[in-house]
């Protein structure tokens, strides 16, 4: 919980602006607890700004006349020192800042260089080491917004750089000491999604001693990996390597597993997320739940007696609809937790299952959803993927021709625990197919607006695997892979490609234009071109497997909005930085693991999960996290207590309190993001936005408009 007042100190100041023309709002935030006279005395100083120009090699100096800008900077009001250097971010560059602060008694520093997103922290630290409060540093971006976008307009770029510096100096002249606020971090984390990514992240967090809530929308954990048969390139059985982790997750004391659960609401901020979870009505009590209700020896033990008597038969989604299940069922025998669940859409409430369950009394047909609130310090999204609805590319006949299946359906068919016991059969007649065509890039690398423009990354590899499985299981079977490229990029992947080609899979370099069906035999006719031979191909096969594109799981959009995570242009969740921060997001305290950030194979998924868990554990282990002090402040002597700002705040950070017999506004600093909504609105000008205060912004505007180029 954020504690106001105790850790924060403000420095009430009156500052004269450098430009007499600019209207001055000298509003100093006053704390009632510390009357102005007793405030820590800092001398009223005249502003003395140091300006440092960076060449950035030729990145800036190539388009901007540094000397000219330097001379100009010297003419600006309040500028006490100007310097330039090849690379300001280097050690000697930073050294210049440090030394100049001491030597010239600077009250503020402006570095004209790249984007603050890169080096604001660098120069804030340098200023701090020079003895200045780090928030008296202002950056002027004359690279990304200057030299780089006006590379062929030297004059224009130079003038723009002068403008940028003039504006920055005007603001720097009015900056004040600010102290970042530290808030405690709840010693708990949340992982949303319990596929391999979520499970791995949860295990890492839990083993690091952090209580972890693992939320899974399905009745069991395991995700997509539990649907796979063998995994490339090692050909390990997927369930065999996954179930130990599933069991670990189920048993780990630090993991509180909630299945049939979805995130309903998220409030708060890093270190203090208040998450509401909807535990959907399962219809079946776990043993713990039964005990809590006083049913001795009760609760579901996975015996399956209910399933036997249930009269309703529906397709099993885990088996991609290819195997039947009852309205009360489990996905497969190895589910974790081993608790049955009811599909309310198909349950007819006949009560036969209740009778069959008997004394265990595990079934509650009147069960309702439950909302549970938890508090966590950080959260990881691991929401995974769905297969693109490939029937939209109707040239390949999916859902029209029986013997055209997707890769995930193929996995279930070839899997020993699948609907056919691992015997690959054709849906139309149950015959064993001998000639099977694999269509790669189905729905991927597609700029038509129907499919996805990106590459789905792991389909080349699993298609190789599928070809191998066919050769292994069906003697004299012939797999054909129709491809544009074979992307076997990972460790031992190219060797795997070599192996599969050696085993006899035929590789036809040509994307399949369309598939037709022989109405009598239900065989498929593939139309492609062997682009290497320069000949059109007509190939009759028994079965077609579409390596369909993947896309974010359907529920991702709802969940990511709750956590304030954006999407990239390709639809996957947006990372903080694609190279330097692929597991973080721009929302502090929220991280990404696995395919939800972009298609990945299992090795990369596990690696990203471990990365996310590591990053997510840092604030928790540190115990506190520093918030940038951009929060709003109430200028109580001006506050009329009207309360209109309170409802405007998107973060519910404001409230009205009684002080000295009148109402004034109060900011919960830890919740405040400094968005400026209240500050911009307040009709009495009673709200001071730290680091973006009205006088500072007006000084910037005035400097820009009134202090034109000379």
């Amino acid at each position, binding site marked *: 919980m954020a504690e106001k007042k105790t850790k924060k100190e403000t420095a009430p100041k009156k500052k004269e602006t450098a430009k007499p023309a600019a209207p001055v709002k000298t509003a100093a935030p006053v704390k009632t607890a510390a009357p102005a006279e007793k405030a820590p005395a800092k001398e009223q100083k005249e502003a003395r700004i140091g300006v440092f120009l960076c060449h950035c090699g030729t990145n800036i100096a190539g388009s901007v006349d540094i000397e000219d800008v330097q001379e100009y900077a010297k003419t600006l009001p309040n500028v006490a020192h100007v310097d330039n250097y090849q690379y300001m971010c280097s050690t000697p560059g930073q050294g210049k800042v440090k030394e100049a602060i001491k030597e010239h008694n600077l009250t503020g520093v402006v570095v004209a260089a790249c984007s603050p997103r890169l080096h604001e922290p660098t120069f804030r630290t340098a200023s701090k080491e020079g003895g200045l409060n780090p928030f008296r540093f202002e950056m002027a971006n004359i690279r990304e917004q200057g030299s780089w976008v006006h590379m062929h307009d030297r004059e224009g770029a130079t003038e723009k750089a002068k403008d940028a510096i003039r504006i920055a100096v005007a603001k720097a002249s009015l900056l004040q000491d600010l102290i970042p606020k530290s808030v405690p971090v709840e010693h708990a984390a949340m992982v949303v999604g319990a596929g391999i990514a979520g499970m791995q992240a949860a295990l890492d967090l839990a083993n690091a001693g952090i209580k972890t809530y693992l939320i899974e929308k399905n009745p069991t954990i395991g995700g997509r990996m539990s649907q796979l048969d063998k995994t490339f390139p090692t050909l390990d059985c997927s369930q065999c390597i996954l179930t130990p982790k599933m069991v670990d997750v189920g048993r780990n004391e630090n993991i509180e597993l909630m299945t049939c659960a979805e995130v309903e609401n998220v409030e708060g901020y890093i270190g203090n997320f208040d998450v509401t979870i909807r535990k959907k009505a399962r219809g079946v009590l776990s043993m713990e739940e039964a005990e809590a209700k006083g049913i001795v020896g009760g609760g579901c033990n996975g015996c399956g007696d209910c399933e036997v008597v249930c009269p309703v038969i529906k397709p099993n989604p885990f088996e991609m609809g290819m195997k039947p299940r009852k309205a009360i069922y489990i996905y497969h025998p190895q589910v974790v937790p081993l608790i049955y669940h009811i599909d309310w859409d198909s349950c007819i409430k006949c009560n036969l299952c209740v009778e069959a369950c008997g004394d265990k009394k595990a079934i509650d047909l009147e069960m309702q959803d439950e909302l549970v609130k938890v508090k966590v310090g950080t959260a990881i999204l691991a929401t995974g993927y769905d297969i693109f609805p490939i029937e939209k590319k*109707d*040239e390949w006949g999916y859902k029209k021709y029986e013997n055209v299946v997707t890769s995930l359906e193929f996995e279930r068919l070839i899997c020993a625990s699948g609907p056919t016991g691992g015997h690959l059969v054709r849906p139309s007649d149950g015959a064993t197919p001998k000639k099977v065509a694999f269509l790669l890039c189905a729905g991927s690398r597609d700029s038509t607006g129907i499919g996805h423009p990106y590459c789905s990354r792991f389909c080349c590899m699993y298609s190789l695997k599928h070809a191998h499985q066919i050769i292994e299981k069906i003697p004299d079977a012939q797999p054909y892979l129709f491809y544009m490229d074979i992307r076997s990029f990972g460790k031992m992947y190219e060797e795997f490609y070599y192996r599969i080609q050696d085993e006899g899979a035929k590789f036809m370099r040509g994307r399949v234009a369309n598939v*037709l069906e*022989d109405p009598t035999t239900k065989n498929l006719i593939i139309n492609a071109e062997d682009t290497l031979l320069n000949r059109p191909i007509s190939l009759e096969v028994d079965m077609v497997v579409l390596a369909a594109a993947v896309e974010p799981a359907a529920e991702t959009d709802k969940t990511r909005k709750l956590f304030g995570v954006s999407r990239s242009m390709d639809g996957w969740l947006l990372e903080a930085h694609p190279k330097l921060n692929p597991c973080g997001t721009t929302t502090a305290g929220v991280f990404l693991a696995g395919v939800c950030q972009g298609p990945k194979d299992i090795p990369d998924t596990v690696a990203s999960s471990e990365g996310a868990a590591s990053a997510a554990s840092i604030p928790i282990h540190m115990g506190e996290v520093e918030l940038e002090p951009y929060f709003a402040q109430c200028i109580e002597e001006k506050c009329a207590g009207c309360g209109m700002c309170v409802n405007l705040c998107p973060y519910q950070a404001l409230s009205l309190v009684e002080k000295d017999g009148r109402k004034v506004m109060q900011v919960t600093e830890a919740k405040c993001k400094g968005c400026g909504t209240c500050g911009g609105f307040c009709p009495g000008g009673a709200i001071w936005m730290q680091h973006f205060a009205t006088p500072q912004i007006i000084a910037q505007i005035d400097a820009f408009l009134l202090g034109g180029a000379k």
Partner: protein
Amino acid sequence: MHEYAFFLGCIAPNRYPGCEAAAIKTSEKLGIKLLELQGASCCPAPGAFGSIDLNIWYAMAARNLLLAEQMKKDIALICNGCYKSIYEVNEKLKHHKELREGVNEVLKGIDMEFKGTIDVWHLAELLYDPKICGLQKIRDSVTVPLEGTRIAVHYGCHLMKPKKERHFGSTEHPYWIEEMVAALGAEPVEYRNKMLCCGAGGGVRGYDLVHAIDITNEKMINLREVKADALTEVCPFCQLQFDRGQIEIEEKFGVKWGLPVLHYNELLGLAQGMSPQELALDLHAVSCEPFLEKIL
């Protein structure tokens, strides 16, 4: 009554006038009035003129469009080839300023200016559209149901493709013209690769006849597999290719087919009680007799 300027093209009025007569008469019965459009020319044939110079294609098509703009009526037509020229040029000129200006520069010389004030429709889509006519109305207008006949559909190419520039939905497995055939009481039959081109377009029929009729022959082979009694289409050029093409196939390849080929308007005419004479079916190269025997 929905009124349209009837764009005729070349092959319908000058080789299969029965299509023209059928279109006018059957449409009237279904609440569509096809008005005389005076002075129209060849659309121009998109395969021929598009290949020579697209600018000429735009200009000549625009001239045809303008005749209808002057009538203040949307155009209805019965040929896929004409559809490509008239519909596509209309859309392209409406949306590309530079093209439009270029065309108007040419048309200035004959005192015409493309304004983009009308729309263009294929009669088949008007018949299918419940807002204009619809399947039920077609069914209700049938007095001689084509019962006991198996009719295959050739969609042709320019009506529905490219799907990005058209509005007919799936170009891989359409079924709407089969529905229109069923509305006449016949049994629509699908056949292998039914969306394959007839082979005539792009000037290929004129450039390399045996190449073109080899494509047609591939379709004939697939049609035989399903024992169709007739083939129907919505494009007189495809009709010519299948009709005369069967004779040419016999001459050049020694393969005899004898499958009657009728434009949907001709079928509609028959179903509404028009006689084979009123439809000039005797002008067909392949005799329609075997088909007529089944329905009359």
